[in-house]
């Protein structure tokens, strides 16, 4: 947590993930026919990728 804004970025990512995984965004994804699981896996994967990028970024340490 030494890199600049690391903590803030993490908090922002948590907020983003919470938003992606809950209504109302979920309700929008649900309107696509059978698209909810696809949306969830895509959102989930993106959150993990962002987290990996944030955690493995060794600059500033």
């Amino acid at each position: 947590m030494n890199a600049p804004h690391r903590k803030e970025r993490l908090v922002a990512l948590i907020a983003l993930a919470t938003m992606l995984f809950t209504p109302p965004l979920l309700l929008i994804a649900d309107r696509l026919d059978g698209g909810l699981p696809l949306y969830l896996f895509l959102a989930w994967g993106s959150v993990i990728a962002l987290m990996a990028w944030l955690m493995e970024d060794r600059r500033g340490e």
Partner: protein
Amino acid sequence: MRDDVVVLVIAFGYLALLFVIAAWGDRRAEQGRSVIGSPTVYALSIAVYCTAWTFYGSVGRAAEAGPGFLLIYLGPTLAMLMAPLVIRKMVRIATTHRITSIADFISARYGKSAGLGALVALIALVGTTPYIALQLKAITLSHAVLVDYVPESPMATAEASFWTDRSFWVALVLAVFIILFGTRHLDASERHEGMVAAIAFESLVKLAAFLAVGIFTVFVLYQGPGDLFRQVAASPALTDALSLESVPGGALGWVGMLVLAFLAFLGLPRQFQVLVVENVDERHIQRAAWLFPLYLLVINLFVIPIAMAGLLGGSGEDPDSFVLTLPMAAGVDGLPVLVFIGGLSAATGMMIVETIALSTMVSNQLVMPLLLRSRHLHRGHSGSLANRVLGIRRVAILGILLLGYSYHALIGDAYSLVTIGLVSFAAVAQFTPALLIGLYWRGANRLGAGLGMSAGILVWAWTLLIPGFAQSGWLNADLLTQGPIGIDWLRPYALFGLEDWDIYTHSLFWSLAANIGLLIGVSLFSRASPLEQTQAALFTEALHPRLDQTSLWRGHTLRGELRALLDRYLGTAATQRVFADHAPDDADDQSASTALVARAEQALAGALGNASARVLIDSVVRGEALDLDAILRILDTTSETLEMNRRLEQKSRELARIGQELREANDRLRELDRLKDEFVAMVSHELRTPLTSIRAFAEILRDNRDLTEQRREHFLDVVVRESQRLSRLIEEILDLARLESGRLTLEPHRLDLAALTRQALDAMHHPLEERGIALEIACEVDTAEVIGDPDRLEQVIINLIDNAGKFADAGMPRISLRLTRHRRGFRLAVADNGPGIDESERERVFEKFHQLPHPDAGTTRSRPRGSGLGLPISRGIVAHLGGRLWIENDCDLGGACLVMELPEAPAISPTPPDMLLSQ
């Protein structure tokens, strides 16, 4: 039908392999080459979260509740995103306080309360034993499917005695495994390296098995995901199963389940065990924070395809068994066994970690506090109690597994896999408020936490556990529809009339409301004991950089007493380790240092839990061991000091900057002072020269009355000329003074700069000729209308020419004068063929009193000529007229070039120029 013996050999062979891996892990640890010191192993061990419930139940839940099954994994994903903030703090605390379990953690946070620890241990025991039963049930079911499966016929689990039930023997083998690898050290806060290695291995096995069956389903049973989902799309019932509609409770149920999974992940005893207690290195959390969610994603990737394929097959089997029945129905041989092993690894991994966590809680939080109250316990010989604690833990392990088995054997059939799992989740979710709030709010106290958790678990029992019994038929089902003895608003699934919620969200809402409400409310209105306040401060400020617990001790005891205590409870070897850094035995009658007391309590806490360690230390330490005021003072002073430091640094940086500025200003002042002194000396000299000659000639005239008329006139001429020179010099000094003070009065008129230049050249023609200076003139404009004071401007021009003449090459002096138009103004450039002026010197030329050393410096004429006031005065005048005066290098003549720029006069208006100018 499959050969039962082969399956048994493979299953128990797999368990034997776990023994080998665990033994290897422990051996490596003893050799100091730990295999679990890697963030990847840490992340894999966290994957113990994925139990048989994930392995079999996810597919079942996806078949029934659509995408809702993912919530069980999205909640932990959110929790892991917070891990670098939350789990890191918990790990830091656990390391400092030698925390052994979540019960120990909560107990230590709330004043090392034995009661609270016991409460958490009891809830964990009641809440998670069914979960262990669930794993055994999964093993039994999957084994039955594997051995007795007949395609196209509903499967019946034969009622059998426990000695023919494979899961009973699995439980026993696991008990042996856990006793061997889970109770090697008395210190439960120490890592179980072999066990963690085995768990990480199991995580790989179950992932591989699930992926194998997933790939088989999608690419062998169907021609890839496109084919499968085309068939799904053809069936409206299946498409609907994939939307939010099929999730119990809809959007609200979705959020409720997400919160439940989040809280349960943090509150599950086995997750606390692998996340916090078994953590080797805080930095591993960073990797696990994304690797574990990735694991969850990958293991869930094929859940929906398998569920859909199972439903499409329409064979009517229990969806919980699709993972097994799909490959079996296809008649593949090896894959079902691999799946069975995967399920077995998922189940055993969970049981191993959960049982270790629970047995530690039972021994340290339930049994030890009771034992410590009995008198005769304190009279054992060296190490006897250490063995007794380990014995208790071993019995607890066996007891917990047997309890789980009994639960499974007696009432397990009443619930489906998912139901048991979720009821269990809701129970352990009651720990999380006390855990998280206690981690960040210093005001949360023991009474609030105890009442909150008790109320939460009571509401849980009323809204989930008891209705479950009713549904299983052990209680009258009227309880659900009409409430207890007809009290309508107490109906378990619609408490206070809150209807139409799904049962888990409903239960979670009421239990959390009671839990958090009481925790906060009671904490706000009750007082905490000093020890509670101390612990609260130590926990909430755990990441405080300068918090060093050992410096806060104030107790007094003899080393001998301390040694005897440790010896009795931990054995000789552990006691030696605690005393290792200290003086040899003969110092036993001396009082123990505060650091030693702290180490002793930590060692006891690691073995017996914080609450018991506290009781034991209190029995030998006199005086207050920990002092809240001291801690708060240290915390406050350190934060104050940090703030002060920050401010001081800022101030000192400011001071350094100001100091630098002052030094520079002082240097400038010195330079100016020096220049002024020189100037005064020079001016005095300049003044004295004409004065001397005036006086000399005047004296000659006075004393020698007989001088010839011619000589007299010559002398008078000299006197007059010298007087003029004197007054010119004085005039210059006065000009400068006026410029400085801003009192220089100019009389600007519209004038022609070209004409003025010619006029000045006429005046300078003779003196230049006398000095042999060649002058080139280039006037590119005929008229150059500017606004200026003609007398002053002429003075400037003459000054420029004079200056150039002075610095022109001594042998072949040449100067050039150029008048050009430049944009909306005119430039008069006077250049010489002298040596030029350095870039760094150019601005200084315009400083008053500044004199450039003459190019002939070093020769007899080394003293600069002129007063050094000409250029400053010229620049002042030009600036007054709205123009600029500067120096550049001249390309033609190679020397310096003084350039004067003046703006062009505005076009003539009807108003007389004089009127304009006077405005």
